[in-house]
């Protein structure tokens, strides 16, 4: 039976969610496998596991539960070892690295902040900032909306300014929030956002980051900010333990 791995914690982590429902349908049960002073949060790997909504949620919930009670290195969704013995072997092989990461990330959580432009809001901002766009729009309106070409010309000019505004606002968001975090990592590329940033913060001082987000909302009313956290530090675990252990 192959083994699904959720994350890695110190062996003395006392709040690991043993017995909790994990991935799979019907849900598998979360277990703990220990070795080299470390504990892996695992479960039996369901046959034919796919990134379905319920499984992604289960992965996230198990890690949230484990992370609430102590530091845990979250695995990327869908990591499957041959069996429990292979998990223990992996723990032993890179024990120093995992311990170093666990200690570096102690009491740290990740907050993911995504920024979107409110379309009407950004159009207003862009129009207010550019005399030439207002003139173009006024000319079109005077001509009863303008020809197809006129509309395209205006729309293209507006789109260009909107895109420029996207990068400017993305930078403002980053600059305002970064001072409240130990580390910043841009999220993986995905669409729909002008900025997608993950911040590593001390669990105890995360309120400062949230406060800065609130101030940004006042400062940039045409930017919609979505905050998710506290999360396990997905974006701050090193992903190449082999490289690191080779160096040590």
């Amino acid at each position, binding site marked *: 039976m192959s083994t699904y791995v959720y994350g*890695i914690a110190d062996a003395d982590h006392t709040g690991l969610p043993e017995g909790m429902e994990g991935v799979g349908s019907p849900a598998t049960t979360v277990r703990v496998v220990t070795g080299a002073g470390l504990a892996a949060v695992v479960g039996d790997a369901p046959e034919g596991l*796919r*990134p*379905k*909504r319920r499984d992604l*949620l289960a*992965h*996230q919930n198990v890690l*949230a*539960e484990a992370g609430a009670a102590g530091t845990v290195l979250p*695995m*990327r*969704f869908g*990591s*499957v*070892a041959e069996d429990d013995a*292979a998990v223990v*072997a992996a723990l032993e092989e890179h024990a120093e690295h995992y311990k170093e990461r666990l200690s570096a990330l102690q009491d740290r959580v*990740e907050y*993911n902040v995504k920024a979107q*432009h*409110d*379309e*009407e*809001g950004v*159009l*207003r901002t862009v129009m*207010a900032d550019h005399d030439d766009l207002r003139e173009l*729009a006024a000319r*079109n*309106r005077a001509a009863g*909306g303008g020809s197809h070409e006129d509309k*395209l010309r*205006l*729309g293209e000019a*507006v*789109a260009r300014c*909107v*895109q420029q505004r996207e990068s400017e606002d993305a930078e403002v968001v980053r600059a305002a929030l970064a001072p409240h975090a130990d580390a910043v990592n841009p*999220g*993986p*590329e*995905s*669409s*729909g956002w002008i900025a997608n940033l993950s911040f590593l913060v001390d669990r105890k001082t995360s309120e400062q980051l*949230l*406060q800065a987000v*609130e101030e940004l*909302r006042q400062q940039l*009313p*045409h930017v*919609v900010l*979505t905050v*998710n*956290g*506290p999360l396990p530090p*997905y974006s701050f*675990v*090193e992903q190449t*333990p082999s490289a690191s252990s080779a160096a040590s």
Partner: protein
Amino acid sequence: MTVATTQGGGSGGTSGLYDVLELILDRGLVIDAFVRVSLVGIEILKIDIRVVVASVDTYLRFAEACNRLDLETGNKKPSGLTDIVGDSLESGARGKTKGALSGAAETISDAFKQARQEGQTSSRRRTSSRKEEQE
């Protein structure tokens, strides 16, 4: 409102899942000795929003929208315009869809739906739950 979505499960976790999907799928520890389950169908996550913005449809929509904006604000001078911007954004920022952005967002939802192969929740419902979260 500063409502940080806590990922503790329940319905809050469900709507938050959409927003951290790419972290769960694309970040986190990888161990070479382990295999990963297939993520076929999820790659569509990487569409760039700019593809959506730079299209004739968008240009026309922006032109239309700007026309409407100017009608609302009348012949106000630029300085007056800024004041009005502040007022109307109160409601605007909490407005409905995100226009150009929503197109891509729905594409992701669709891809996600396909990947799930199970129709428990429609992409429409997921989109609306995100809206609620922001309000």
